[in-house]
């Protein structure tokens, strides 16, 4: 049904957990006073021990220290990303998304402080995937709890701060599903907003959910929720099934209930036999780039340029338009094998996108 099965996911998680701790890029800047000033100002923390050298010199530390809760700040990439290294957490969350668990809510964040960070400390994060538990049926839908630890080390390799972070990745309910659909959708939206505004491990939640084409518009930290993605599709009775499928992590192709002919884009009648008994099938989720463009100008609302849009030919015999993500524009070419991935653009809209299928046969798919 989808490109990644639950069994595949669990096997992948086991492999990634076994990789243990993976070091990330060191912070772009050492711990510094200007950044501390911005942070305490934003947080409303007036303790002079963080900003006043004279006061701090007389205190228990003998010098200015950074607020411990700033740990993540020192190595968090900006909304446009930055130097990122591969992380086991990113790999797993990408696969979890591809399996249709596109919803996210942060459930736990626990920090342990080994010492205060001082001005001049250069911190380096290291991430360790610790567990994936599920699938569990929750009020938001079926999902997996994914947990990881991040440790920030100083230049001597000594830990400064540790953090446990846990998210629930869930399959959003679709309209018409049993239970209090509207209420749970609202709960999911609220949860997603909370998750988006809460700090997460470096590059993890932000990249898995809102990265790629919508960098800077759908990422975390923008205040009380994701900014609404401006490029919304119109829907009607003929096309709604497609968008409901996308929200559920399925790429649905209209299939005639009488003669079985497939068509995309969908419409009210079968093009082969004129039947109005329309149904759908779920595509295998693979395809090949048939044509593509790289958009540079003019700026497009909700998008960072350059971005790639492709016409993708599916093995089912139809073509679908979508973005190609997770690779450089110059690596896209006609004939490139791709697989579908699902990206939440805001609290309401998920889009199917395409990522290079550069995996040899016998992989996880």
């Amino acid at each position: 049904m989808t490109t990644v099965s639950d069994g595949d996911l669990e096997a992948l998680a086991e492999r990634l957990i076994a990789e243990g701790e993976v070091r990330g890029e060191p912070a772009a800047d050492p711990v510094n006073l200007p950044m501390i000033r911005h942070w305490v100002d934003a947080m409303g923390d007036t303790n002079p021990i963080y900003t006043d050298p004279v006061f701090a010199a007389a205190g228990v530390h003998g010098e200015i220290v950074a607020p411990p809760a700033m740990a993540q700040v020192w190595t968090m990439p900006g909304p446009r990303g930055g130097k990122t290294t591969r992380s086991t957490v990113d790999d797993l969350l990408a696969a979890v998304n591809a399996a249709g668990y596109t919803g996210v809510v942060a459930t736990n964040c626990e920090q342990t402080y080994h010492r205060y960070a001082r001005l001049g400390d250069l911190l380096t994060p290291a991430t360790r995937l610790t567990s994936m538990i599920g699938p569990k049926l929750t009020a938001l839908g079926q999902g997996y709890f994914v947990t990881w630890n991040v440790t920030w080390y100083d230049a001597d390799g000594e830990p400064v701060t540790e953090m446990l972070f846990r998210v629930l990745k869930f399959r959003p309910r679709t309209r018409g599903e049993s239970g209090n659909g509207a209420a749970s959708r609202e709960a999911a939206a609220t949860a997603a907003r909370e998750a988006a505004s809460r700090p997460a491990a470096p590059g993890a939640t932000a990249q898995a959910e809102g990265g790629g084409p919508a960098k800077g518009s759908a990422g975390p930290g923008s205040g009380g929720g994701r900014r609404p993605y401006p490029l919304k599709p119109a829907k009607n009775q003929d096309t709604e099934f497609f968008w409901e499928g996308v929200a559920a992590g399925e790429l649905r192709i209209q299939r005639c209930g009488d003669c079985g002919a497939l068509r995309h884009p969908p419409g009210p009648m079968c093009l082969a036999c004129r039947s109005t008994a329309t149904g759908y099938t779920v595509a295998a989720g693979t395809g090949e780039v048939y044509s593509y463009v790289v958009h540079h100008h003019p700026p497009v609302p909700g998008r960072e340029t350059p971005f790639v849009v492709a016409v993708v030919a599916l093995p089912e015999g139809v073509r679908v338009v979508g973005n190609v993500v997770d690779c450089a524009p110059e690596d896209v070419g006609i004939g490139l094998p791709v697989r579908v991935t699902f990206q939440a653009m805001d609290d309401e809209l998920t889009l199917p996108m395409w990522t290079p299928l550069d995996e040899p046969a016998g992989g996880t798919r």
Partner: protein
Amino acid sequence: MTFVRRTAVAGVGATDFSKNSGRSELRLAAEAVCAALDDAGLTPADVNGLVTYTQDTNQEISVAREVGVGDLTFFSRVHYGGGAACGTVMQAAMAVATGVADVVVCYRAFNERSGRRFGQPDARLGGEPSSQGLEMSWHVPYGLMTPAAWVAMFARRYMHTYGATSEDFGRVAVAMRRHAATNPAAWFHGQPITLDEHQSSRWIVEPLHLLDCCQESDGAVALVVTSLERARDLRRSPAVIAAAAQGAGAGQAMMTSYYRDDMSGLPEMGVVARGLWAQSGLTPADVQAAILYDHFTPFVLSQLEELGFCGRGEARHFIADGGIELDGRLPVNPHGGQLGEAYIHGMNGIAEAVRQLRGTSVNQLQDVTNILVTAGTGVPTSGLILTRD
């Protein structure tokens, strides 16, 4: 009751072409309509039909009021953006030939540069669940929402299928700018470009460079259509309508027909071409010049193929070595086209075709008897063959 060789364009009129007209779109329309009537030697009182584009913001009745046209017995709009251009003339000719109207003015007026720019993304494109909004909704959410991007998707496939290159597209731009350079009405008057300049111009949407894209313009053009018989008595030599056709292909969409064939041609222009050759009884060899819609360079190549001036995939050879320049095998857009003169949604090209037949163009070609004109590409479109009386 056919309009073929029984109707004619008897007058053409235009405003200046600019980036900021400083006047209302209705005023531009009124100015162009008056200029076309003056050119034909007619008065507003002679007019009883008006045709424009569905995209035009000036109602027929508003234009009629402004210029002093009285009773209207025919008014009509043609849809699909710039694909409407020659379609307005076809509808006017049909009205005249059937006796519904005597004198019909076709017009297009807009502040497309200083007002609403078609080249800019408009998030509302996918907003309404109309059939067009739904069509756009398969593309707009992915940021595929500008005309350059829609065309670039075809261009990439065309390059892949036929081995065409960006330089081939660039040769179209170079030819159009060469023509515009000697046309005082052109925005790019005195500003020719080289192929190197084309190649080094910035990307808009790969594989299209800036210089593959036409400019955006303010301005208006109007055309007077009447019976050939009446046109013969008017001030100017008639440009006889030897053929006028509209066309949409199977599986057609607005700029995004990505789902139907191999994406390397323009089937709707093929429909138009068959109509034009059948009506006129002419062949490509009988045509001395062409006005090809050039909002983006790649579709000029596809049009040459669809119209039968060369074989599939051969347009890059056809345009090589100045093949579509003033002294080439088929001069295309002697006025500089929309890349060089102005983007008036194809109507300025029809005016140039009329001038070439009259012998009054600033870049006058020798011995033009038959000239072919096309309208917007990538959309349901239209075409004309105009001929000397």
